[in-house]
């Protein structure tokens, strides 16, 4: 019996002692020596955010729903096209595109990788994920490029936007997952939005960096020959910043792919969902299939975009 006692739950008296001790602590007067030992914090940020979300979501939801429209169109168009083309033809087409953008070697690798994805039974999921990643990339460039250009021109803007970019990259996705779902409804569009939040910072940062790294004497020479702001940007700054901007595109793609699993938690289908289901059902097999699909897509996209960047440099 003594053994039973050893494994037993602490008895009621001890438990109530512990609880009462805690409640006694609660009633204790505020002490400057332990200034932060206040339930819920001195500044009730959590409650503030809750109130704000409750107030703002119903108002902004329609606005965000409208904003979501173009994302939805773009996403559906790409996904529809990728799934409409018969898989063997799609593999050949994608390999040819890879060849056009990079080298024969990378193209063959891409083709073989996609063939394997098909053989292990993750073709449709891979195409859904690919369309999601491409859509995210498209909107990241659309948003990131102009913001990056703007930041390269204004130190003040950079000092304000930089911490925001830091926050976007470091805030755990789970924190903004729920508000995003509240605003956009669960599904693929919300998945793209979450991916954009996480993946757009490198696009902005590297566009800014690339333009700032253009040698000052070239800028001076261009100005001396009479460039206006637009010509300076299009004829000198962007072409010379292109290798760095392509590195931004590459980073954005990689971060986008790494969001696939998290996005699947808000009902985004694709390879991420396979992984999530695998974890949920304790089915290592299906999780591996999904995971392998993500890795194949990641490596192929990485090599292709890296090659484009190096080519320019």
């Amino acid at each position, binding site marked *: 019996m003594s053994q039973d006692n050893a494994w037993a739950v602490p008895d009621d008296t001890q438990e109530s002692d512990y609880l009462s001790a805690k409640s006694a602590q609660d009633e204790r007067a505020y002490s400057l020596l332990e200034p932060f030992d206040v339930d819920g914090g001195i500044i009730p940020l959590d409650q503030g955010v809750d109130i704000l979300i409750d107030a703002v979501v119903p108002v902004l939801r329609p606005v965000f729903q409208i904003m979501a429209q173009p994302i939805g169109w773009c996403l559906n168009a790409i996904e529809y096209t990728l799934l409409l083309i018969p898989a063997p033809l799609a593999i050949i087409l994608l390999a040819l595109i890879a060849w056009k953008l990079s080298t024969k070697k990378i193209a063959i690798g891409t083709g073989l990788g996609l063939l394997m994805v098909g053989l292990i039974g993750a073709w449709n999921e891979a195409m859904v994920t690919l369309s999601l990643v491409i859509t995210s990339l498209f909107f990241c460039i659309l948003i990131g490029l102009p913001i990056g250009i703007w930041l390269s021109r204004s130190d003040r803007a950079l000092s304000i936007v930089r911490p925001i970019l830091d926050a976007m990259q470091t805030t755990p996705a789970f924190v903004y997952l729920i508000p995003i779902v509240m605003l956009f409804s669960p599904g693929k569009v919300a998945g793209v939005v979450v991916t954009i939040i996480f993946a757009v910072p490198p696009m902005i940062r590297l566009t800014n960096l690339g333009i700032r790294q253009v*040698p000052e*004497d*070239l800028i*001076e*020479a*261009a*100005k*001396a*020959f*009479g*460039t*206006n702001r637009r*010509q300076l940007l299009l*004829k*000198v700054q962007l*072409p*010379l910043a292109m290798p760095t901007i392509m590195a931004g595109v590459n980073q954005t793609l990689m971060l986008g792919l790494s969001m696939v699993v998290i996005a699947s938690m808000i009902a985004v289908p694709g390879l991420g969902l396979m992984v999530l289901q695998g974890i949920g059902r304790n089915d290592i097999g299906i999780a591996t299939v999904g995971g392998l699909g993500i890795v194949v897509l990641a490596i192929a996209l990485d090599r292709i975009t890296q090659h484009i960047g190096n080519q320019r440099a």
Partner: protein
Amino acid sequence: MKTKLSVKNLYKIFGQHPDKALKLLDAGKDKDEIFDETGQAVGVQNASFDIKEGEIFVIMGLSGSGKSTIVRMLNRLIEPTQGQVLLDGVDIAKMNDEELRQIRLHKISMVFQSFALMPHLTVRENVSFGLGLAAEIEHAEQVKRADEALERVGLLANGDSFPSELSGGMQQRVGLARALCINPDVLLMDEAFSALDPLIRSEMQDELLRLQAEDRRTIVFISHDLDEAVRIGDRIAIMQDGVVVQVGTPDDIINSPANDYVRSFFRGVDISTVLSAKDLAQTQQPIIIQKQSTQCLNSALQQLQGADEHYGYVVDEQHQFVGVVSTDSIESAQQSNLLMGDAYLSSPDKILFDTPVSQLISAVAHAPCAPPVVDDSGKLIGVISKTLLLDALDRQETQNESR
């Protein structure tokens, strides 16, 4: 010659509060005091000079003397704090952005020390860069004019190369072609040849002088190298701590430097290559014999004996140099009843006014008397005696020693 570009009371103060610095400058404070007091850096103060049409105007000074700042204020790559930059009488400093852009597109172009060629464009695209910015010129015309400019600098065959494939000298030829391609009124050259090695540099100087002989363009050339300045400059402005301390021809500056700073530039410089025959000749008055008639042998002899001189220089009514006579040659001509024309000595030969001093040392040393110096129309300017030449060379020695 007409004034092309005129700089009037030009100031550049770097910093947030130029007014404070300007006030202190008016109060007579110097650059360092102003920087300590206000944190404003004086780049250029009260610069004024006129650049004539078709001349090469060299602005010379040590690094930090404000010469690069001043040239950038001419096309407003750096905004002047105060003052005027008049191109054909129009103030560039007051232009709005669009007017300024038109000036940069058509009137003023620039060659840079670092070449500053666009690495992503071919040589031909680099050369037509300026033309491409002006919307009105068609592509075919751009290519044609770029090729013409490349041909002038001898790089027509390299039009499709990228700048990184060319040597430094070739890259700067591309820089020059790019600047010439828009056919500018004024060419600004900011230490254009300083990054090149000495052999290529002098080759490029020759190239510039050759091009300049073809089109007599107004060129503002920035340099820290006196040899270069003297070699290519029609006139030189010398800057010290943001102030233009002296403007003049190379000879003016060498012969009468405004202060020790200017003088210091010439230390170690071989004066005999900088000075020419006329700089020495003008300083000594020889015996001039007017050739009036054939019956003047007597009067010539009297003139020489009266001055206790052995040699005389004969000129005609237009002051054209005719020949050298000596008391001996006149006397022997008189004895043989000959005329003045037979009394001329075979030596010394006349020296052209622009012969560098370094090339006339042996002529002066071997001549029986001081050789005469004539200008390009044959008029006698003066003579150079051995004493005079030694004096000039000695002056240089003392300067070098005092360094």
